[in-house]
């Protein structure tokens, strides 16, 4: 059924799903039950005559209204209540930027680009006009912007520490994409020119997958990234490796 859930709040999506399944399952069985019963009990045969009933009496009207109220309260409001409850946890209470590890995502055709703030903890400003889909995914001015100089970038691979709130800031360099970390039960569109966000907290270490869920062109189906959930120390080592890579690149200039 569902893929493995490795997040703090993801189980609420599953719970809501199963609650909905229970409610609509009962409704469905009632409908099909009556359908099958009628097909046998009220089929045309010699000696059986249909009753003449239009359902336009006052009694029918009242019963219909009661039925409507039952559907609205029993099914609709019930589900809306649990949806709201899950919503507050999953989408409604984002961590502040101080509490969370912030990761900036610039999606572009067929690849996910991730950025960490680096040693200074501050993201360099992203300039739309500097964005270059081959050399400068985040539109950074590394030479003149101090905050940008140590920003760490990673393509199609992102590491996060376990049991820590993570805040993704998501945008796009070209068309719409949708950031879909399957094992966290969430999805958020990447829109050029607008920043959306998503927060998650992992409960297990391991390598998981991120899919693109919004049609973005001919290689949409290949737009995959890996999400590595690590212990804190492994995560720091991973960041150090990125920083070394950045330093080597700097030497080339």
């Amino acid at each position, binding site marked *: 059924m*569902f893929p493995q859930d490795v997040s703090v709040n993801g189980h609420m*999506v599953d719970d*809501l799903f199963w609650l909905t399944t229970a409610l*609509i399952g009962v*409704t*469905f069985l009632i*409908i*099909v039950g*009556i*359908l099958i019963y*009628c*097909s046998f009990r*009220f*089929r*045309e045969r010699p000696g059986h*005559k*249909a*009753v*003449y*009933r*239009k*359902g336009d009496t006052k009694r*029918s*009207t009242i019963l219909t209204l009661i*039925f*409507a109220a039952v559907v609205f309260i029993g099914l*609709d409001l019930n*589900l809306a209540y649990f*949806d*709201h409850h*899950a*919503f507050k946890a*999953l*989408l409604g209470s984002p961590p502040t930027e101080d509490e969370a590890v912030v990761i900036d995502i610039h999606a572009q*055709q067929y690849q996910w680009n991730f950025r960490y703030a680096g040693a200074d903890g501050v993201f360099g400003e992203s300039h*739309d*006009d500097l964005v270059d889909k081959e050399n400068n995914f985040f539109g950074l001015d590394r030479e003149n912007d101090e905050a940008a100089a140590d920003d760490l970038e990673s393509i199609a691979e992102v590491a996060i520490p376990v049991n820590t709130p993570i805040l993704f800031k998501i945008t796009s*360099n*070209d*068309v*719409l994409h949708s950031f*879909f970390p*399957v094992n966290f*039960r*969430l*999805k*958020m*569109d990447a*829109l*050029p*020119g*607008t920043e959306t*966000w998503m927060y998650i907290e992992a409960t297990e270490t391991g390598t998981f997958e991120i*899919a693109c*869920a*919004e*049609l973005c062109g001919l*290689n*949409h*189906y290949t737009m995959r990234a890996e999400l590595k959930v690590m212990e804190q120390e492994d995560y720091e080592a991973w960041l150090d490796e990125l920083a070394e890579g950045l330093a080597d690149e700097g030497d080339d200039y």
Partner: protein
Amino acid sequence: MKQSYRLINNAERKCEAYYTMSGHDHHEHKHGFIRTYLFSLDHKMIGKQYLFLGLFFLLLAGGMAMMIRWQLMYPFDTEHPFPILGKLFFGKEMTTMPPEFYNMLFTMHGSLMIFFAVTPIVIGAFGNFIIPLQIGAPDMAFPKLNMMSFWTIFLGGVIMIASFFVKAGAAQGGWTAYAPLNSNAVNLPDLGTSLWILAIYLGGSSSLMGSINFVTTVLNMRCEGMTLTRVPLTTWGLFFTAILNILWIPVISAGLFLMLIDRTFDTNFFLAGPPAHYEGGQPLLYQHLFWGFGHPEVYILIFPVWGIVGDLLSVFSRKPAFGYEATLISMASIVCVSEVIWGHHMFTSGMSPILGHVFVILTITVSVPTAIFFLNWLCTLWGGAIRFEPPMLFALGIVFVFSIGGLTGLYLALQVADMYLHDTYFVVGHFHYTLAASVFFGAFAGIYYWFPAMFGRRLNKKWGIAHFILSFIFINCVFFSMMQMGIMGHPRRYASAEKYQFLMSSGVMEWTKFAGWSAMALGMTQIIFVVNFFGSMFFGRKSETNPWHAASLEWTVEHPIPHGNFAQAPVVFRGPHEFSSPQTEDLDRDWLTQVEPDPAT
């Protein structure tokens, strides 16, 4: 305003004038081939033209669906090219489908099915053929507009087909054609997408013309005694469809127009961020415009089917439609609500949480009128004497598949569940249950039911039953598997799932194979229908005037129904569903048509 009044009065006057005219029943013989079969002004011929157009595109787009499923069963597998056509399309050496071809297939499958198969059959064919007959009118209010509406959608269809032959092929950006993938010419530079926009535009114009005709006809050309509460449910469904069309087609037209000039003149309506030329554009604007039309479109397509189900369950249960007025009120309330719930398509677009909540509540409110439909349908069956003719089987099938389609909509109406299920195969399964299974069962129910009125012959009953049973089994196999794949997390519009470990290790391929072979079987099953349809049209058993013992007006005229429909203006005495009424006790039949006076007591 004044002018439109005059127009409507004209329609009324024409209606009266028609019947006072003498010798009009020999009218049609004066026309030559072209005026009778091509540029006909007769609503019945236009209805049939729509039917053939729709069936043609249904076969074409259905074939594309089979190619889509094949690609997913054997992604990029050179050992298993698509049977017969694979070599033709991709050459002898390269037997696999390139991903852009796959994208083109699902884009064109969706667009053709919705705008050129469902719309012409369910709205164009049934609407034109049935509305004037059911309300006792000699023709549509504006016959020339009616003819023009057919030839406009025909032109749209020609452009759609032509777009396959331009460089880089037809549109590839999804039937929703989201910006900026489609609006920025950098992404899809070739002509295909622009032609697609043009064709949808023409299809929309055609629907608008048709809808103005439907609304005017229903409101002004009802015969004497045909009060609004005596109009059959099918006509009511088509009437509500027409109202939604008139309200919302201009919205998508505006969106598509902006997209077309974005593409061709480098304007910037739907561009923001790095690719933008200037400031001030916004890709989300397109989504609002699209779904502002796109969600009512769901009801546009399903209203006629709801009407058909209501009428057919009544006719074949030999009982009046239960809660006729409650059904009408429910339909009308859905017309109102359908216009304010488009946001549930955009829960993942980063919309404000409060706005999201509003859309959740509004969306699930739709389940109340929908539940009343089910209540009325089941109460119509209860206590009836059910005849299992092919149209009735399809109507019962709709109650089943639409219950699945409608109920699974609840998951997607909930913001949190939608965060996971959005843009996965779950959504695809859900909307195929409503738009494919329910609507095409409605189309088949209607075709089996009105075939005698259209062609004066009966479709073969045994083959009809076989067609229903096989279609019912396979359609459920296909779309239920899709929902299962969606729960496993399979995103839609993927040419292959092979890159993803979580999918390949979860057994999603078994479901894909099952859905794929079921889709092949479903496609093959339709051969039964095609043979039955064309065979019966020429060689079928001749039908009597009222083969189903129905009560509405279209069954009171003899075949072939002449130009002008009724020899004299009919006068209506009662509602459309008078079956098994106490008044028929002394008769040797159990129905009273709308036009006969009360039997002497």
